C-alpha cells in the first residue's frame, strides 16, 4: 500500500466522514424539530380533548354530561405524554429545557461537527485524543 494511495484513501474517508457528520447533524436537527412538534401537538391534543383522549380513555364520552358547568379538567402529568416523552433524546432535551441536569448530562454537551471549535484554534493537546472523548466513548459503548 503506497503512501499516496493511503492518503487518497484517507481523503476519501475524511470526505465521507464530513458528509456523514453533516448528515447526522441534519438528522439530529430534524429529529429534535419533530420531537418538539410532537410535544406541541400532543399538548394541543390534550388541551382540546375535553371528554377524554386515547391516553386518558374515552369514558366520558358515554356519560351524559348535562351539567356542563363543573367540567373537570383532566390533569396531565409527564407520564401522560406517551407520544413525546417516549423518546429518550427528547426526555433529555426536555429536562434541559426545564432547567434540570441529569446524571450523564455532560455527555449531551458534545456533538459532532465538521468545523473546528473555538474559532479554528486547535484545542490543547490536539495531537492526543482528548480524554473527554475517551470517556464519552466508553459511556457510549
Amino acid at each position, binding site marked *: 500500500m503506497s503512501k499516496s494511495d493511503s492518503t487518497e484513501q*484517507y481523503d476519501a474517508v475524511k470526505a465521507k466522514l464530513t458528509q456523514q457528520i453533516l448528515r447526522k447533524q441534519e438528522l439530529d436537527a430534524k429529529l429534535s424539530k419533530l420531537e418538539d412538534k410532537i410535544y406541541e401537538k400532543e399538548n394541543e*391534543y390534550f388541551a382540546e380533548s375535553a371528554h377524554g383522549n386515547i391516553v386518558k380513555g374515552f369514558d366520558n364520552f358515554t356519560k351524559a354530561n348535562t351539567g356542563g358547568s363543573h367540567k373537570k379538567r383532566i390533569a396531565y402529568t409527564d407520564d401522560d405524554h406517551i407520544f413525546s416523552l417516549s423518546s429518550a433524546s427528547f426526555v433529555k432535551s426536555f429536562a434541559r429545557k*426545564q432547567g434540570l441536569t441529569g446524571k450523564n448530562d455532560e455527555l449531551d454537551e458534545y456533538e459532532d461537527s465538521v468545523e473546528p471549535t473555538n474559532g479554528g484554534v486547535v484545542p490543547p493537546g490536539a495531537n492526543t485524543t482528548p480524554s473527554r472523548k475517551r470517556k464519552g466513548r466508553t459511556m457510549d459503548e
Partner: protein
Amino acid sequence: MALPSTKSQQAGGARFRQRKISVKQPLIIYKQKDLPDLSSNDLEPSQIHHLNSSGNAAQQRDVHAMETGVDKNEEDEVHLQQVINAAQRALRGSEEKKKSEINEEGAAGSREEEKKPDVYIPTPDASRIWPEASKYYNDFTFVAPETYIKFSATVEDTVGVEYNMDEEDEEFLNNFNKDKSSTKVCSEVEFEIICDKLEKTIEERQPFLSMDPSNILTYKELSGFIIGELTSTNNGYGNGGKYISTTALKDKLSKELNYKPFVTLFDKRTENEDKPQPKIRTITKLFDLFGESIYTHWKERKISRHGKHIHPSLKFEDPNANEKENDADPYICFRRREFRQARKTRRADTLGAERIRLLQKSIHRAQELIESVCQREILRLDALDAEHEIFKLRSEGKSLKRTIGIKGDDYLYYSHKRKKPVVKIEEEPVGTETSTPASKKQKKNKEQANRDRKDVEDAATATSVVEGIPSAAAAAAALQQEAATSSTQPYVKLPASKIPDMDLVTVSLVLKEKNETIKRAVLEKLRKRKEQDRHFINLTDDPYEPYFNITTNDHSDKVLELNHIPYSSITSSFYHEINNSNYISEELKKLLEENKKALPGVKTFRGSNGELIPSKPFPHISSLTKDYNGESGSDLTNGSSDNGYIAQLLSNIESNNFNAYNNGYGSQVQHRADESQESKLSEPIFSMRKRVGRGGRLFIDRRGLFKKPVAPLIESSPSVTVGGGLGGVVNVYDSEADAQKRLDSRWRFDDDLTEYERGIQEPFSLDPSKLNCISEDTQSIRFGSMLLSKSYDLFRESVHQRQQVLIQQARARALQQQQLLQKQQQAAQAAQNAQQALQLQQQQQQAQKLQQQQQQNLSRQSGLPIPSSASSSHSQSQTHTPSHSHSPVTIPNSRQLSQQLPHGQDKMGTSASSPGSMGNSTARPSAQQRTNSNPNPNTNIVQANLQQQQQRTGAHSPPGTSQQKYKQSNSTPMYNNSSSK
C-alpha cells in the same frame, strides 16, 4: 299509562299490545265455554285462537291475536295468507297425527311433510353472482376509504347524461357512423349527450307533446333554443330557477372557471389515464356536426313513443290526480304510505352524534400523533445509523492517519462541546435560561441549594414526599426562579403527586416575609396618615413627655412664684428634672465619700430595745457609688445642682426641717441659688420657626439674635427742657422718655424674650386665663386644673359649712333633749312626791320631807345636779316601788346619749368635736341649774303632761314604763340626727 279497555277496543284496527296488569284495568275473565278446546296443552292460548280461526266466535279476535310481522294492510297478501293457512293445516294435521299416531304409527307423517314446501312467500333470489359485473363496473381507481362514505349526491348527479342508448339507437348510430372518417364519427357518449339535450329541451318547450306528437318542434327551432340557451348562460346564473342538468352545470362551471376538463369527485375516472380519452366535443359543435340527422332519428322515436320520454322513466303518483286514480294505476311506483310524522331530532340525538364526531376527531389526532412518532423513530434509527457510520469512518480514518502519519483534522474525530444552543422559550417562564456552562453551574448551585433546603425541610417536617420523584424535583427546580420573585408562597401540605406545582419555602423565610409585609403596611399607613395631616400642625404636647426646658434651668431663681413647686408635678418636672434623675449632690457625695457619718434621715432599729438610732455608715456604700461620683463630678459642672430638689430634700431631712411642706419649696431654693451660680447654659443664639400663614404665605419667625436695644434711659430731669424757661413743657420730639416709649411700643409684640423673661417683666398679665410665669404650652392645662382645684376648694368649703350647720342643729337638739329629760325627771319626782304624799301621808310624811330637803340641800352644796337627782330617784325606788327600779339607769343612759352626740360628730370632723362637747358640758349645768332653781313652778305642768301620756298609753300602765317610753322616743331622733350627718 294504560288506556282504558273500552278505548282500546274502540280503536278497531289497532293491535293488541301487551299491557301491564293494573288496578285500573278490568281483567277479562274467560270461561270454559269462551275458550276453544284445549285439548293440546302444549300450545299457547294465542296459538289456539289462531287454530280456531275457522270458528265463528274467535274469528274477530283472531287477527289481533296473531303476529304476522307485516303491516296491517298487508296481512291480506296472498302468499302470506297461503302460508298462514298452510301452518294451520299443518298444526291441525299434527293434531290429527297425534290421534292417528295411535292408529297408524306415523305412516301419515311422511305424507304431511311432503305437502309442506308447496307454499312459501316468494323472495328475490340474492344468492347468484353476476359474472359480468367487472365488465361494466370497471372503475378500479376507486379505493375504499377507511371511514364510511359520506354521500349526499343523487344518483342522477353522478351517472352523467341521463339519456341511455338502447338497441334502436345503437343500430342507428352504427349506420350513421358507417361511412365516416374517424374524426367525423359520433361516439356513443356524444350521441347520448345530443339526445339528452333534445329531450330536455323538448320537455321544457313542449310539456304537453303527448297530446299531439305530430306538432313537435322542428330542428331549427330546437337547435335555436339550445344554442341560444347555451350562449345566454354567460350572462347571469339565469334559467329562472329552472332545473339545470348536471352536464349543463358542469359546462357552465368549466366555462366560468376557465378550467377545462371539469371533473368532479363524482365523475367516473377512467381506468387508464394514459390512454387518450376520445375527446367529447362541445354541444354546439356536436349539434353542428350531427344535430340534424340525430334529430330526425330522435323525432321518429319520439313520435312513435307518442311524445313521451324515449327513455322509459318511472311513474310516480300524480299529486294532482285524486287518490282513487292513483290507487288504480298499477304502474305507479313508490306509492306514498300512511303519513308518518318524521321523528324530530332531539338534543340527545345530536349530543350523541356530536360525541361520535368528537371521538372520531380525537382518534384521528391520535393517529396523526402515532404516525409522527413512527416518523420520529425512523429518523432516530437513521440518526443512529449515521452515528454508527461516523464511528466506523472515524476508526477507519484514524487507522489510516496513523499509518500515513497525517496530523490535523482532529476536530473531525471527536465530539465538540455544544455551541450555545439557543433554547426556545417554553410556555413556562423558566425557559429564558440557556444551557451555557455558566448558567449550568448556576443551575447546579441552585439545585444544590435546593437540595440542601429540601433536606432541611425533610428533616423538619419529617416528610419524604420530595424525594424520589424526578419530575417533581425538576418542576421545583424550574420554579425556583419564579419563587424568588413571587411575594408569598402558600404554605400548604400536599400529597406527593401535587407537590411539583410549587416551591417549598422555609418557615424562616415565610416569617421574614410576613414581618416585612407588616412593616411595609405600617409604613404605608404612616405615609398615608402624613398625607392626610398635611398642613396641620400638632400643637398638643405629648402627654407622656412633660414639658422640660433645659435651657431655662438657670432661670429657676428668677421665677417669682415658687411656693407651688412641691405640689405641682409639672413644675417639679420643670425645675428638677435634672436633679432628681440619678444626681447626687456635692454634699451627699462628700458624705458618701467620707463614709463616717450616718446617712441623714436613715435610721435603724437597735436590736436590744427597739430604739431608733441613726444608722451607721455602710462601709461599701462609697465603693458602690464611686463610679457614679466620679462621673457626676466631671459631667455635671452645673452649679445649680446644689440646689437640686433631691439635695434640698435630703438636707431638709437631715436638719429635720419640714418647712418646705408648709411654706413651699421655692424659698429654700432661692437661698442657695444665688450662691451657687457658677456656670450657666447659654441660651440658643437664635431660633427659627417656619409657619404657613393665611393664603399659603410662608413666614419665618426669628427669635434671638436681635435684642431690644437697651437704651440708657436718661430721663433728663432738667437738662432736656427745651425752650428755656417757657412753661417747662417738653417738646414731644425731643423728649427722650417719649422716644423710649415709642421704641418700647415697637418691641411690644416683637420681643425675643422667653416665657420667663417676659414673666419677670410682666408678672401679671391681662389675660385672665394666663397664669404668670408659666409656659404657654401647659397654660391651658394649668388653667383648667386651677379652675378645678378652685371649684374643689369652694366645694369643700361649702361642705364644711354645711357640716357645721348640721352639727349646730344636732347640738341644739341634744340640748333640748337634755332639758326635756331633766324636766321629766323633775316631773316624775313631783308626781312621786304627790303620790307618796297621798299614799304615805300618815306613815312617812315627816321622814320624806326631811329626806327631800336633805337631798336638795346636798345637791346644792355639791353642785352636781345629776347624781343628786339620781340618788333621789334611786333612794325612792329602793325604798318604795319595785317598778321604779330601772329609773336610776335612765339617767346614766341619757348621759351616755349626750356624750354619744359629740362622738358621732367626731366621725364627721374633729374640729366639730371640741365645741360640741363644750356646748354639751356647758348646756347641762344650765339646765340643771334651771331645774334645781325652780322645781316647784314646773311640777304642775309636768304632771299634766304625764297624765296626758298616761291616758294615751293606757291608764293601768305604771308610770315607770311610760317614762321609759318617753325616753325611747326621745332617743331615736337623736340617733337619726347623728346618722343623717
